[in-house]
């Protein structure tokens, strides 16, 4: 076979579905980001969409590069990636203590990067490897969960003390999805859920004073004014509701242009989207997310080894939790915890995370036909 036929064959086998869906959602997102920020007085905000486009191409390039890596290497390097990630989290903490206050970033020259983003992927990989190596045929009981839970808890706690409780909880939720997929016994699930609800509820309701509850909310996201939280949530609800069925139209968001909504390019981007495109716009967007999530689910059921299946489920859960938590919080269903909406919210580190997940999934998908 000459070189070009080989390339043509590779291209034929190449699974474009992940990058394709991601790109469509990003397209919606970038148009929306432009609409939300173009009216800003601050040129740094008004130009964010350009920065986001640069991040998109960078993340896409990295994602595509990863898609050509043999998935066996993901398995092989699971622990190394995991340990590297923990080292970086420790480095962030060390540097953070020097700088006082919350520190989530590691700088490599001018490029800044959040190791807490990488830790989501690292946890997926290491859980996949552990569950495969200890390949239980039977359903898992709580005692089988001790070591995976420890593997999850280490990076999670390191993220929580940054402090970034939101991402920490997200890591725990990713673990729970994988544990569920890996056939944790129903009895165990019921026990865990009941226990969590009971202790959490009792502590929150009776064990804490009002100001402590507020402090928990502040702790989840230190940048948010715990007292002003209600106000932002109301403005967000007004923005969403005012979109009604058809929306006010592109660049017509009054909440955005009058800067009623803070953080409207990151956490509250979904509110602006709804104000401008209404329920119809949301139906389209949610449809796209569901397509993406089911693409992951479908892939997980058709691969030929368990490791690939588990990590694809893990990636699915990363996308799912981000999407669901962000939408719920801006609609006032959950407290505001600073979780971005995938491909819609501004932010380079999160774009890189999502494209890395997509790249690994594509690699796994492409490899199905090789063996």
């Amino acid at each position: 076979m000459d070189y070009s036929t080989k390339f043509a064959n590779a291209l034929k086998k190449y699974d474009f579905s992940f990058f394709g869906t991601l790109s469509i959602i990003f397209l919606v997102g970038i148009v929306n980001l432009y609409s939300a920020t173009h009216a800003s007085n601050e040129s740094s905000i008004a130009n964010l969409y350009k920065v986001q486009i640069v991040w998109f191409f960078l993340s896409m390039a990295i994602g595509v590069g990863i898609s050509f890596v043999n998935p066996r290497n993901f398995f092989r390097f699971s622990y190394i990636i995991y340990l590297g990630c923990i080292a970086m989290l420790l480095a962030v903490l060390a540097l953070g203590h020097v700088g006082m206050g919350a520190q989530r970033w590691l700088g490599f020259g001018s490029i800044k990067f959040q190791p807490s983003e990488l830790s989501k992927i690292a946890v997926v990989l290491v859980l996949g490897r552990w569950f495969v190596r200890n390949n239980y045929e039977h359903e898992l009981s709580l005692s089988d969960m001790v070591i995976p839970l420890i593997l999850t808890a280490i990076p999670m706690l390191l993220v929580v003390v940054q402090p970034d409780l939101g991402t920490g909880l997200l890591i725990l939720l990713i673990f729970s999805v994988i544990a569920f997929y890996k056939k944790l016994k129903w009895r165990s699930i019921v026990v865990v859920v009941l226990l969590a609800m009971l202790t959490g509820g009792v502590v929150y309701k009776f064990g804490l004073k009002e100001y402590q509850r507020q402090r928990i909310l502040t702790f989840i996201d230190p940048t948010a004014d715990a007292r002003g939280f209600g106000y932002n949530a109301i403005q967000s609800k007004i923005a969403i509701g005012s979109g009604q069925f058809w929306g006010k139209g592109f660049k017509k968001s009054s909440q955005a242009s009058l800067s009623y909504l803070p953080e409207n390019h990151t956490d509250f981007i979904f509110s602006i989207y709804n104000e401008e495109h209404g329920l119809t716009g949301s139906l389209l967007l949610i449809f796209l997310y569901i397509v993406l999530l089911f693409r992951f689910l479908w892939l997980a059921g058709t691969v030929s080894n368990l490791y690939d299946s588990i990590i694809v489920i893990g990636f699915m859960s990363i996308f799912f939790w981000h999407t669901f938590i962000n939408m719920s919080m801006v609609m006032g269903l959950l407290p505001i915890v600073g979780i971005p909406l995938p491909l819609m919210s501004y932010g380079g580190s999160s774009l890189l995370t999502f494209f890395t997940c997509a790249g690994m999934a594509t690699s796994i998908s492409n490899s199905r036909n090789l063996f």
Partner: protein
Amino acid sequence: MFNQEDLVKSHKPRADLLGNMVVFAFAVVLARLWYLQIYRGDLLYRFSLENRLRKENVEAPRGLIFSRNNDLLVFNTPRFDAVLVPQYISNEEQTIAKLSQILSMNPAEIKKILQKSSRQAQYLPITIKKNISHTEVAIIETEHSKIPGISVQTFIGRDYADKEIGGHLFGYISEISQQQLPKYINRDKIKYKQGDFIGQSGIEEQFDKYLRGVDGYLFMEVDAMGALKRLIRDDALFQGIDNKPAISGNNMRLTIDREMQTTAYNALEGKAGSVVAIDVNSGEILAMVARPSFDPSKFSMSLSSDYWSSLVSDDKNPLRDRSIQEHYPPGSTFKTITAIAALEEGLINESTTVACNGTFKLGKRVFHCWKKHGHGVVDIHRAIKESCDVFFYKIGTMLDINILAKYANMMGFGRRSGITLSNERNGLIPTREWKVQKNGQEWQLGETLMSVIGQSYVLVTTLQMAQAYAIIANGNSLYRPHLVKEIFSNDGRILAKFGAEKVAEVKLSEKTLRLVRDGLYGVVNERSGTAWWFKGSGIRMSGKTGTAQVIRMSAEKLFAKCEESDYKSRNHGLFVAYAPKDDPQIAVASIIEHGCHGSSAAAPIVRDVITTYMKKYRPEQMEKYIAEERAEQARLRKAMAAENKTETAPVDGPDDE
């Protein structure tokens, strides 16, 4: 590990369940979207159009400040500002034109204000004019519908009952500056925001964290013009927001006496100088006044640029608190300290005498006494009473400068008193080491001779002077001067109490104290004393005059008429006293810049302040003293008539010094 297809397949039920959960989760999201966008859509749409929900800051009133007798000295008073919300402006030109008419402002000025705030969010009000009159308020209220966006905002202004009296003491509040904002947030861990008023000087600054309250906020529904429609209470939609009432600041009770403040202020009329009155048994400040002063209420109501520039450009600098932020050579008032050092060190005693012929020779240098032809033979009593320089020059040849410095430091000179006010000066008490460090030169004996009479490098503040004489009055205690009796909350709870704080025990022998006190009493109460003409009545004051040279003068200039030289080279006048003699309660110091003479410029001020004190706090004692003085005078007259002598009063009035 490959070909685990069956194993993977065995997980399918769980994968399917995950799929169902995803669908269910998004169904919840869609249901919520339907509720907000369809069910509540109309309402929320209208809300978004009008932006009807507004979060208003509720300013917390600052705490009140009372005198020691519960006179209200500093309080809050409403101030009305005209504000404009740019979001509602339909025709900017027209709005500006109408506004300039109502507020009698230049249209260009309004335009400039609007441009300056053009970068902030459109719904935030911009202050056009502060502290508008009631007529202007009324016009704006009626014209409101014709000029969209204009409204009146009420603020809490700060007012000071006695305006300029004690301006420095109370200090002023003004908006936190851009530079202060990040610095103070970091320092106080308080979330200051732009537009917040903070104490910038005096008590307002030092006790800001007690006086300031905690701002609250209020959610309001406003109409399309931006006017208040109703306060938001409960609506299913507004769950999660709640109003927060403002918490007003704590109040203070000072040690200050209002009448004494007023007396001191009036006595300083036309002068540049200061008065400090201190309770000798506790260090409580009873009065602390400096002139020229400023009106702090102007700062929080509406500081006009005219007033500000008049303060800043005045070369007498009315913003400076002359009682602690300026230091002066103490002149002869310092001789008391020299006398104490010499007596305590045993260099002199009550029988030591010096013959004063008006000059004192040290090598080739000639030192002059203020009395050109000399005092004759003087002992310590006369030396203090008549302020004989030559007597002290003689001490200067025996007393090491470092020993003098030791006693001066013991009595509180050369360092901050620790009063809770900012920018207090140290003053200066020179030592040999200080001079070597300062300019690399050895200390000269001639400098000691000038130091013992309070010249050369010696510098003191008015407060230090009062504090030192309080020690002579109470016999042994250096108290930290303080201004605040207590801080109490609105419900009357006492949050902090400040009592006498003894900084040091000053051990002076009974003999030294007796000799010095007798001398000081003679200054005021004996005919040849330098302050005899200002002894007042019924106050039994003991004190010391001082006339401090500002520039070094030649001998003939030294005896020229001070009032005829130009202002800047005139001598400072000082007077420090305590009273009453046998049961001292109060020490008062006054320094008058370029006042020429301590006796004529400063002594009457101190006398007036002490008289006010005695009248108010010791009326019976005062009456008794007056009766005794009258009896004494009658006795003298009788004695003189018996000896058939007529009293001849000095024709030249008060003695110079």
